[in-house]
């Protein structure tokens, strides 16, 4: 039920964002209609770079800490990494679409772009680790450790690349002196965009976790069935006698 409410509210807020973003808000003085990407691209990037990866890191820590260890945290980490891959790829795609007309190139070796691309590769590596067949506990341990090793790396990658080169415009909302450089209807639409994409993320996360839970249950059930079949193979005569 909660999942359904999440899904519906994300759909509604997304539709509102699209309506406000395309028809209601004015074009930008410098960027014209291109600025409308601002209602989608930063929210997606926020989910990809902070929310999803943050949840994956915390869930992995929770799994590794023996007192709170439970399959729940592994499912949460696995699901948020998968959703993070989708959102990181979307960040790169929407950023590319925005970069081509404004910067004149699809791709630039800018700090944030490079960090995001490396993050995508690192996340794909963790997914590759999860695909290696193993018993659930080993797989959970491997994946949690891989997440921790990668989580330590991402800030270092970010700062080294920032020093390396920077072209991307600085943050609009969360800048150093917390003075947003966006106003009026555009600011509200951007805020709505953040809410909508965040809701969408949590809905996808919840759906993904349900799939994970059902897969686990199915594997358990298959094992039980297989065991029962093997028992039944040796048992018919005994059953016949009993009847």
């Amino acid at each position: 039920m909660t999942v359904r409410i999440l899904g519906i509210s994300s759909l509604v807020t997304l539709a509102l964002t699209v309506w406000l973003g395309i028809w209601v808000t004015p074009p930008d003085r410098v960027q014209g209609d291109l600025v409308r990407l601002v209602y989608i691209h930063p929210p997606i990037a926020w989910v990809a770079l902070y929310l999803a990866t943050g949840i994956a890191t915390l869930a992995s820590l929770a799994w590794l800490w023996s007192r709170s260890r439970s399959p729940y945290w592994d499912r949460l980490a696995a699901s948020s990494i998968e959703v993070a891959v989708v959102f990181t790829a979307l960040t790169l795609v929407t950023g590319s679409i925005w970069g081509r007309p404004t910067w004149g190139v699809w791709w630039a070796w800018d700090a944030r772009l490079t960090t995001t691309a490396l993050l995508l590769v690192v996340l794909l590596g963790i997914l590759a680790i999860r695909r290696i067949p193993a018993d659930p506990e080993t797989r959970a341990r491997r994946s949690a450790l891989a997440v921790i090793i990668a989580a330590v790396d991402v800030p270092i990658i970010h700062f080294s690349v920032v020093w390396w080169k920077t072209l991307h415009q600085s943050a609009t909302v969360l800048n150093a002196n917390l003075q947003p450089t966006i106003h009026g209807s555009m600011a509200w639409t951007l805020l709505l965009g953040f809410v909508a994409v965040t809701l969408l993320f949590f809905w996808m996360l919840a759906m993904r976790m349900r799939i994970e839970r059902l897969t686990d249950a199915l594997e358990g059930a298959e094992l039980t069935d297989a065991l029962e079949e093997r028992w039944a193979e040796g048992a018919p005569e005994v059953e016949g006698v009993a009847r």
Partner: protein
Amino acid sequence: MWRDALLVAGKDLRIELRSRVVLNQVGPFGVLVLVLFAFALGPAPAPMLQAAPGLFWVAVLFAGLLAVQRSFALESGDRGDGLRLAGLDPAGIFLGKAAAVVAELAVLEVLLGAGVVLFYGARLHSVGVVAAACLAGTLGVAATGILYGALSSGLRVRETLLPFLLLPAVAPILLAGTRAWQAAMSGGQPVWPWLVTLSVFAVVYLALGVLIFGPLQEST
């Protein structure tokens, strides 16, 4: 922990001294990488000179990858659980294996450094900066390499998995090491941010390895 680290490093290096796999196979491979890049860049000296610092570090990363694979191949198969059964401190095993890889890579880096100077005509103005960058960068490569090596050791897909995991993770070393070398070659550019980045990377991963190598060993 330190005593176990010394034991493990001594064991790995003794095997290397007797088998000479890293020196006789990985070393020539690193030099070959430099030669191949020279072919790719063409015979003009200017682009080669410009690319020299980056190519040195790319060659170091490739060689480091092979050194890490070799380090875990020593304990593959029947000997897989030997180190764990010996009751050694996991942190000691981590530091020992990393130290052995650092020692092997240090020899290779001298070789590759000579290769860069000979083939590409690079001139290193401040040898101190070069040495400091190499030391910090190599510690970082070895620490991350041993962590990811342990994560992928014993898996059937380890040969393909390890480069996929390790190379993006050590991207900061490639960036910072290259910049430090460029500063050492031309002079005048700021060098401290890069040496700090390399050192922070190395310290963070050495500390992380000491903390998590125990559970990491259980995951194979």
